């Protein structure tokens, strides 16, 4: 460039050189040189600035792209199906995880609409969740099944928020769906196991009862059939033994009544299925359970003694449930003594009054007892010290007692074995009655009225 400047001014200075360079011309030339240099400098600076600006912009663009890539990476790899939908239902965005899960291109989903991959039964849940979010202005969630690329529906927890304009109108929805299929399955398995367990506990109790019932009914039946056979033979003899036949017929009737008593007790045990609280005569309930347990106790060579306190007021409870607790305690006591051979297998069932508030029942055995470590865990579900036990009985028993507002506890005896006790609150009116009435006769008449 400099060369060109010189070239353009060069034609006239030739004459000057020939003529011996006058001062004026020299000054102008120098000034020109200087201007040119200055201008050149300015241009270079501007050029540099421009270059910098371009580089700067490029860096910013790169940073922005990196940031976008980063955000996109986050949103596409976040362990969930992220999405945004306009308030009119138009799908605006689905992250890569979502598209991969569906096995569809974004356009395909957009065409299908937002309900398209959702299980038909679960769509209404979204509608409800949407309304809830609109009402509460907070995060809403709904569980729904979403169809995977292979056609399998998996459970998702879908959480969403609404983006609103300054006027408060919803513009769009943002959400993320988490796969909860495994959790859901675990929950179902747990529920299934729980209901199986509940059924098993019931079956076990009923199984034990059935064995007792069969025994209780078979005894008098044996008498009835033998007596009737004898009666027939006596009448068929010649001459017929009428007196003998009469006696056997009388015994047949008596045994028939015995069998019917067993059935009556049974009916009393099973008729009340409603868990509503009712006045319960604890002694009577206890006697019924003992009657049904006797054959099992005998089979296990257990001698049962009872100390049922007189004039006990009624407690408030579910008769059958309380009887299941008593049955369980008696069964446990019997089991605890099954290996005891160096002492009589004595069991005591005792009812007592605990002040004005409650009655309590104790079952004491002389069995193997339990260690301190076992003692702390006896009421835990699935904890058992028996080889063939399931560890359900005591935990169920305690929950029944606690539902009745009572307590269940255990204590080692002075001698061998342990005592299990539980308390049940009295009927409310009998609590006050017990405080104001001193005569025992009066509380007994109350008891009759409330029955």
């Amino acid at each position, binding site marked *: 460039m400099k060369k060109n400047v010189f070239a353009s001014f060069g034609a006239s200075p030739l004459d000057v050189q020939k003529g011996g360079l006058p001062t004026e011309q020299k000054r102008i030339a120098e000034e020109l040189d200087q201007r040119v240099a200055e201008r050149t400098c300015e241009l270079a600076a501007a050029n540099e600035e421009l270059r910098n600006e371009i580089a700067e912009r490029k860096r910013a663009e790169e940073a922005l792209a990196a940031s976008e890539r980063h955000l996109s990476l986050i949103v596409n790899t976040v362990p969930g199906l992220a999405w945004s939908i306009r308030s009119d239902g138009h799908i605006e965005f689905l992250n890569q995880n979502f598209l991969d899960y569906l096995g569809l291109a974004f356009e395909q989903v957009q065409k299908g609409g937002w309900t398209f991959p959702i299980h038909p039964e679960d769509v209404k849940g979204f509608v409800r969740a949407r309304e809830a979010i609109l009402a509460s202005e907070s995060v809403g969630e709904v569980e729904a099944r979403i169809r995977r690329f292979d056609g399998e529906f998996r459970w998702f927890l879908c959480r969403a928020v609404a983006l609103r304009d300054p006027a408060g109108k919803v513009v769009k929805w943002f959400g993320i769906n988490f796969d909860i299929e495994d959790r859901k399955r675990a929950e179902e398995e747990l529920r299934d196991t729980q209901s199986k367990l509940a059924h098993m506990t019931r079956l076990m109790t009923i199984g034990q009862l059935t064995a007792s019932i*069969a025994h209780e009914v*078979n*005894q008098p039946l*044996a008498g009835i059939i*033998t007596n009737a056979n004898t009666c027939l033979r006596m009448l068929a003899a010649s001459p017929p033994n009428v007196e003998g036949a009469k006696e056997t017929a009388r015994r047949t009737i008596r045994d028939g009544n015995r069998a019917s008593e067993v059935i009556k007790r049974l009916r009393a045990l099973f008729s009340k299925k409603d868990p509503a609280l009712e006045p319960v005569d604890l002694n009577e309930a206890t006697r019924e359970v003992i009657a049904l347990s006797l054959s099992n106790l005998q089979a296990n060579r257990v001698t049962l003694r009872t100390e049922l306190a007189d004039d006990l007021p009624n407690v408030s409870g579910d008769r059958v449930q309380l009887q299941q607790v008593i049955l369980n305690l008696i069964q446990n006591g019997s089991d605890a003594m099954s290996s005891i051979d160096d002492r009589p297998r004595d069991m005591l069932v005792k009812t007592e009054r605990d002040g004005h508030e409650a009655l309590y029942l104790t079952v004491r055995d002389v069995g193997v007892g339990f260690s301190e470590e076992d003692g702390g865990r006896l009421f835990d579900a699935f904890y058992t010290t028996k080889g063939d036990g399931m560890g359900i009985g005591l935990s169920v028993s305690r929950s029944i007692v606690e539902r009745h507002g009572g307590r269940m506890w255990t204590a080692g005896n002075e001698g061998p074995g342990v005592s299990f006790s539980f308390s049940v609150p009295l009927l409310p009116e009998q609590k006050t009655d017990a405080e104001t009435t001193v005569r025992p006769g009066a509380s007994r008449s109350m008891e009759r009225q409330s029955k």
Partner: protein
Amino acid sequence: MTELVVSTKVERPLVSVVDDDESVRESLPDLLREFGFAVRAFASAEEFLTSDCVAKTRCLILDIAMPGMTGPDLQHELKRRRREIPIVFITAHADESARPRLIEEGAVECLLKPFSDTDLRKALDMALAED
């Protein structure tokens, strides 16, 4: 008349009943007498063992589940004493699983209560044939 003569000449075989259930102790002896046996009834195994019938009993009708000494306990005790009386077990527990074991141990039969007179008769015939 002839029957009477026979019965005085041939002593009726003694059948002992051991059962803690009273209705069985009352009803079974009458039927057994109708069958033509002499009968003694006992409420427990211990009562039977201390009686004078252990040596004379030709057949034992024995309840399985009793407080104190059980039917099988008595069976073992008799074996130990080398006094092996044919035993017909009777039980109100409708549990068939005990039967094979008891028969393996030497019992003639195990009848589930309630049982018919013909089943009882069959079992007694077997027991006495064994004896």
